[in-house]
């Protein structure tokens, strides 16, 4: 189901690369020596038990936290320690576990904030935001305050903000958290459509392994701050260490 007809992953352009990325807090190493490469159009699932350092790693990449060691290279540019907004303007966007960052903004305004990455002009940003919302079938919700949306709608607005900003590499942190199984399916279809239409490179940070397996062709598994497996979903899913470390019971259940 993923980007068919495009050249094999290995030949595609490298979007993001981390070299020995790590972060210490006082004594402890929350993330250590993470070196991964993400290529154009890939759909990567970043998995790991609670507290494996997934979010911290994401924060290091997206600039929320400054790394204490290692490098982040985005489209060939060394962006280690850049601020999130700088990376955002370079096409790297993220969502937070927090479902609803801007509760008292209207849906349109919330999306416009992202749209300003493309244009400084308010009307242009507004129309870009409208398009994005229409694309997600939220056109009728433009004037609604975020806090009055359903969980699914909130998450769709998050996606709309990314679309409107024209970002092409997105880190989605627990996008599926708090959704009912059927909702998960629907949202993933939406995401799949977006990814295809806007040729997004997607990294899903998730606990729900089953869902991730249906969407991602590649898995990166972290544990205790380090990458313990990285490769095609099917292989990684059957990798012994991973199964023991994390997937085991859950995976069998889902399969």
């Amino acid at each position: 189901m993923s980007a068919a007809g495009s050249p094999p992953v290995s030949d595609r352009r490298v979007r993001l690369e981390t070299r020995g990325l790590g972060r210490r807090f006082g004594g402890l190493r929350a993330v250590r020596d993470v070196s991964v490469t993400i290529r154009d159009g890939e759909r990567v699932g970043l998995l790991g038990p609670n507290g494996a350092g997934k979010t911290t790693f994401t924060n290091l990449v997206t600039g929320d936290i400054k790394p204490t060691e290692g490098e982040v290279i985005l489209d060939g540019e060394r962006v280690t320690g850049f601020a999130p907004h700088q990376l955002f303007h370079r096409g790297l966007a993220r969502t937070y576990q927090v479902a609803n960052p801007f509760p008292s903004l209207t849906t349109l305004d919330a999306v416009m904030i992202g749209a300003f990455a493309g244009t400084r002009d308010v009307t242009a940003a507004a129309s870009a935001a409208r398009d994005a919302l229409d694309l997600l079938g939220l056109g009728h919700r433009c004037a609604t305050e975020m806090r009055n949306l359903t969980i699914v709608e909130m998450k769709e607005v998050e996606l709309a903000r990314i679309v409107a900003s024209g970002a092409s590499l997105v880190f989605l942190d627990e996008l599926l958290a708090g959704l009912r199984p059927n909702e998960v399916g629907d949202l993933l279809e939406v995401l799949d459509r977006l990814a295809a239409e806007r040729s997004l490179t997607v990294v899903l940070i998730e606990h729900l392994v089953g869902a991730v397996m249906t969407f991602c062709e590649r898995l990166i598994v972290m544990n205790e701050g380090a990458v313990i497996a990285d490769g095609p979903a099917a292989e990684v899913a059957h990798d012994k260490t991973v199964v023991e470390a994390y997937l085991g019971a859950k995976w069998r259940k889902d399969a």
Partner: protein
Amino acid sequence: MLRTYSAPLVGIAILVVGGVYGATSESAANLVAMTAVWALMACGWNIISGYAGPISLGQAAFFGITAFITTVLFAKWNVTPYLGLIVGLVVSLLLATVIGLVTLRLSGLYFTLATLTIPLIMATLTRYFGYHEVARPYVGESLAYFQFNGSLAYYVVAAVLVAGALLFTARLEGTRTGRYFVAIRENERAAEASGVPTFRYKFVAFLLGSVFASLAGWVYSQLSFVFSPDEVYNPIVSVQALLIVLIGGPGTVLGPLVGALLVIPLGEFTAVYFSQLPGLNELMYAIVLLVVAFWSRRGLYPLLVGGARVLWIRLRPAGERPVKTPAVTDDAAQEGAARDSAEVGRST
């Protein structure tokens, strides 16, 4: 167009009515003039803390320095207050630049505390260099020296400035900058991750706020006749601005004016009717504040406009507020961060 400026137009109407009332007697004129000055001060705080988020208690610094410069230049070198204002504004902006660059990196309470100390430091320095009380020289009715018998003229000046501030705020709401401000207030980290250069925009808001505070301090120095550091650098000055906006409605165009219309006359009222016993007036004042703190979370302005929505907010029992979405609370940034550190903590 009209939609954008409907609020400021209402405000201007209110200001005109105030002028008519101020014309009835000198004490009425003094009251409306003071109200306008504080509304102006509040507009500044509203931009920093009502729109962009960081809660500043340092506004007295800019209020005071302009009052100081205007008065001292006039008293010592006979410089007209108009020039004094320009010098005051320049110095305020420089000061705001320094303070902003240092303190805006702090978040939440820490920023508030840092800003709280600035005016106290300035008060000490001012006294240290020998300025305890400087009377604004008296030259009688003189346009050249911005001096008029009767406070009504000062009211007119202050009212024009307030009108300007209201129009500016309304215009701001529509712009990208204004939207960025609100995004930062709602959730600084999410705003940053949505491409908002949060520090730069908080800094801009801080500078804007300092300008309004300077203007307010300038008019105030003419209304109170005498500069005294203990007075203009008093934490109460900053707190007053905060209270007015919180009562009027933070992040709304008319909030500062509405708040000032309540708070300042209230102060005057309590001073007149509760002066039998020392402290009784401020006690009454405090009790009203307490009521406000509990009763209306969004301030008075929304109560007047979108009464229904505020009602809905109030009807929600405190306990039921969604804890899972920290963005709802005012210190979302911190809570978000707290989550991270918790996450880090777990990954040990």
